[in-house]
């Protein structure tokens, strides 16, 4: 029993990262039907930009950075990567918005490789160690061990997801996003600035990925330029699992995937983790392509 509870907690932590990254995937797909394969690399950019800021501000020692300093870096990085996401959309996707879907998909792969190798040139190919470290202490609940860092990660990602949900449901911009997802040309006829809203979607998606990137850097301690690749694929899987285009689905898909992987690692062994994740992806695509929450025709977002 304790063990099952412990695995659930382990899975929840991984799942929180997957969910945050999956949100960007699902939002972009929902609004322009593009699988943005560069999304995982925005997560990587977030980790590296956060790393650079923290190194500069804390002088590599890191222990004396207050919570405020970390918070500023966190938000600053999210904004910068959000802008990078907007830039990517403006340069690589907008000119192809009316081209066949395949062209824009291939461009996304090109953007992904460009981001990866640009950061390899900029930051180097070797592993970097994050300048701040989280303390190891935590709580014992019902015989399971959960560290404050884990609680923090889960809470923070829950907070970001809640914020996004509210933004989509309650604001005028959220309304515009949902409208564009339904019918793009009708929206522009109604006077909605479609390009601006698409850019905003990229901004939000990219900054959430960046937030996950910094959190992963702080939590695990190491980053490298290829870190976005596998998590990009996992987030894509999570998005499909939950029903791609569906925000709640992405959150749910990430958590389900994380927990499944944790159980898989425990009972089958670590090398089966990816086999399990992508096996599930294939099963879902074959038997229920709309995902857990997706219905045949429904309002995306």
């Amino acid at each position: 029993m304790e063990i099952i509870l412990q695995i659930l907690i382990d899975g929840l932590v991984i799942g929180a990262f997957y969910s945050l990254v999956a949100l960007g995937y699902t939002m972009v797909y929902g609004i322009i039907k593009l699988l943005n394969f560069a999304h995982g690399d925005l997560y990587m950019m977030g980790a590296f930009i956060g790393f650079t800021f923290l190194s500069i501000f804390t002088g590599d020692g890191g222990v004396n950075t207050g919570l405020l300093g970390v918070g500023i870096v966190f938000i600053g990085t999210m904004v910068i990567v959000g802008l990078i996401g907007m830039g990517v959309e403006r340069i690589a996707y907008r000119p192809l918005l009316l081209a066949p879907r395949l062209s824009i998909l291939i461009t996304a792969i090109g953007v992904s490789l460009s981001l990866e190798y640009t950061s390899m040139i900029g930051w180097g190919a070797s592993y970097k160690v994050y300048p701040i470290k989280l303390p190891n202490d935590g709580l014992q609940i019902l015989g399971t061990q959960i560290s404050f860092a884990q609680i923090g990660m889960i809470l923070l990602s829950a907070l970001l997801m809640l914020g996004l949900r509210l933004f989509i449901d309650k604001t005028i911009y959220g309304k515009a996003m949902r409208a564009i997802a339904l019918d793009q040309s009708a929206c522009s006829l109604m006077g909605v600035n479609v390009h601006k809203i698409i850019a905003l979607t990229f901004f939000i998606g990219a900054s959430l990925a960046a937030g996950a990137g910094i959190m992963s850097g702080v939590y695990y301690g190491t980053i490298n330029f290829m870190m976005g690749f596998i998590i990009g694929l996992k987030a894509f899987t999570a998005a499909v699992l939950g029903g791609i285009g569906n925000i709640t689905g992405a959150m749910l898909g990430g958590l389900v995937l994380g927990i499944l992987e944790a159980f898989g690692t425990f009972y089958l062994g670590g090398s089966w983790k990816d086999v399990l994740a992508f096996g599930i992806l294939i099963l879902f695509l074959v038997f229920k392509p709309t995902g857990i929450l997706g219905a045949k025709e429904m309002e995306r977002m």
Partner: protein
Amino acid sequence: MFHLKKYSIIAIGMLLILSLFLSACSSEGSSGGKSSSDEILVGVLLPVTGNNATDGKDMLNAMKMAAEKINNNGGVLGKKLKLEVTDDACDPQTATTAANKLVSMKVTAVVGGYCSGSTLPASGVFNNANIPMIVAAANSSELPAQGYESLFLINGLVPDQAKTGADYFKDKGAKNIVIIHDNSAYAKNLADFAQKSVEENGGKVIGFEAINPEEKDFGSLMTKLKSLNPDGTYFTGYYAAGGLMLKQFKEKGVSGFFMVGDGSYSPDIIEIAGADSADGLLVTATPTANFIPGADEFVKEYKSKYNNLSPGPFSALSYNGMNLLADALKRANSTSSEDLKKALKETKGFQGIGQVIEFNDQNSLNQSNFHVMKVVNGEFTLEK
């Protein structure tokens, strides 16, 4: 058409003559180097370009240092050692070409070999040409398995490393062992041998796990380990995963020792895990000069000679290799292959830095040179 053909025949003829002339020149040049009677030509085969160039250059520095010292002390058999350095770039094809070049230059012996993958084909070329080769770093168990009698290995092999780890566990009374590898050929090989050694020592392997090398989250794996309650855990992969695993091992509070193989033997593992988590980490590794008692002089000399650079992981071995060759040449009192091979084979108690060299039937070390290192206060120290 006819004219064209005639001209082309003339042109080809001239090219042929020119190339003959050039090749005559070059062969004269190399035999000229060989025939000078006051030098012994020693081939050096190392990756001095490519990904492994750093280690390769460190090894070369140590070999040069050894050769210089030997020459300053009057050389061998009244002759000076002359090093002929070729680059294998850790690539099998390049290594074969480089080996053929050394054979054509008629080197007396070869010292080198960093990557097992490129040393394997090169050792075949040298064996066919009957040129003795002393391998300083490459340590795949496939090398001695070829059964070449011209090949001598002075680095411990994978089974030796596995045994060193298993013996340490046995000494400390650790019986229930978990072994984790990362599915790379090297790590899997070491993990398999480690399992064998642990079982031979009367221990029990209660978990044999594989991970992906890029993995970051070992949470559920550590939960599993914790439920197994091991006395010792041995990870045979590389430092990037090793450091993260160690950190999460400590966070989860898994019982017993945490040991890693030499793929994780890097200061980076301490940095990734954090000094607190790394405390008490065990590493099975070959001697790095910094930690070998009696190597202080070597380290000091190396640093003063090469801009205060620390000797790399295989420098001491390379230094030993060159000295062993000089010693064998003296004992053989000849530069013929047969005499030299016999002398190398008969090496008894050759005292190198951090190791005593004697060969077994397979021409690999009779007594392994693997040590167990322990991290204390964020620094590697020699444990056993």
